[in-house]
């Protein structure tokens, strides 16, 4: 990329933070994953092809960083048989924002990850399916179900837009 990195931070910083929060819960873990994502992205930025989709690339980096955080969390917690991408309790951005992230954290695992990577992160159905398993059609349904229950729990409206494909 020949574009100033600041542009990527400005345009995609919010998206990446939402993805990190949906995967890890709001709080220090999500903040750490955001920071690790942008430090790694800054390092790699000059080598990123000029025609790459910067947002999708950042979301993929964010996913890897979130998984790193989950692994580190698992190492410091009780041994677990598998490493589910669950948000940590205790994150608390406070105020209004608390509600939606709590509602996201309460979603079934697959819905939550689909909301993270597809709905918020903008990754296509097929790519999201490859990341979390299942079919593209299942991802589509999980996104619709997830957003519907979030809107029911938190806001008005239905899942009529978002990232359809």
């Amino acid at each position, binding site marked *: 990329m020949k574009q*100033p990195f600041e542009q990527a931070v400005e345009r995609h910083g919010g998206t990446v*933070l939402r993805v990190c929060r949906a995967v890890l819960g709001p709080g220090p873990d999500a903040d750490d994953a*955001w920071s690790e994502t942008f430090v790694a992205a800054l390092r790699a930025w000059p080598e990123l092809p000029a025609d790459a989709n910067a947002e999708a690339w950042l979301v993929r980096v964010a996913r890897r960083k979130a998984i790193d955080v989950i692994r580190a969390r698992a190492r410091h917690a009780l041994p677990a048989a598998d490493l589910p991408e669950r948000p940590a309790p205790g994150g608390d951005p406070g105020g209004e924002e608390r509600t*939606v992230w709590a509602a996201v954290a309460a979603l079934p695992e697959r819905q939550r990850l689909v909301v993270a990577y597809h709905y918020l992160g903008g990754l296509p159905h097929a790519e999201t399916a490859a990341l979390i398993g299942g079919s593209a059609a299942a991802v589509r349904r999980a996104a619709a179900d997830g957003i519907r229950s979030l809107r029911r729990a938190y806001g008005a409206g239905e899942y009529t837009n978002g990232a359809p494909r």
Partner: protein
Amino acid sequence: MTDTTSKTDTTRMTDTTDTTAAEPGLPVAAAASTDDADLFPLETGALDRLRARLVERAGEHGLLDVAYRTIDTPVGPLLLAATQAGLVRVAFEREGFDAVLEALAAKLSPRVLRAPRRLDAVAAEVEEYFAGTRRSFDLPLDYGLSAGFRQLVQRWLPHIGYGKTRSYREVAEFVGSPRAVRAVGSACATNPLPVVVPCHRVLRTDGGLGGYIGGLDAKEALLSLEAAA
């Protein structure tokens, strides 16, 4: 992309809202963004804190190649950009801050971040200059954006004292190329560090203002500031 509303200490490479246009491949990737803002709000200041932390971490990892900020001055907002070596660019708003940043990214490094604190010392000196309390700058300068004769001329310009002026011809003579009057003119016109490297103190032999990257009003304002102080 320039947000001139955040005047005091920042410039933002701002969202042109349609990020999709510039990014082929996933044309609807950002489609959820506007909705996200109401269904998935981020509390005020959350991103600012993370961005400040990113600047720190980038510095620690040696990844902050170009740091910048903007400041307000009597001649309008100025963009200040620095490499690890020193101040590398001062730009007037009329040059287009986004275009300037894109040029810095292309010529120096795309690892460009808005990092106001990194330029506190520079901003303080520039503000003192405009307040009339500073007559020369004491800052590390990076002349890396110019080369050859132009850089030679630009490095010589600080020899013209505060409140003094020289003609393009005199400058040509001082740098040892008396016939290079036009080249001195283009060295001044392409000065990457206006205000700090005082190309505004160079006039035509007949006393005419000549040109100025910040516009003739700005050149006049700087000269009257110095004449009054």
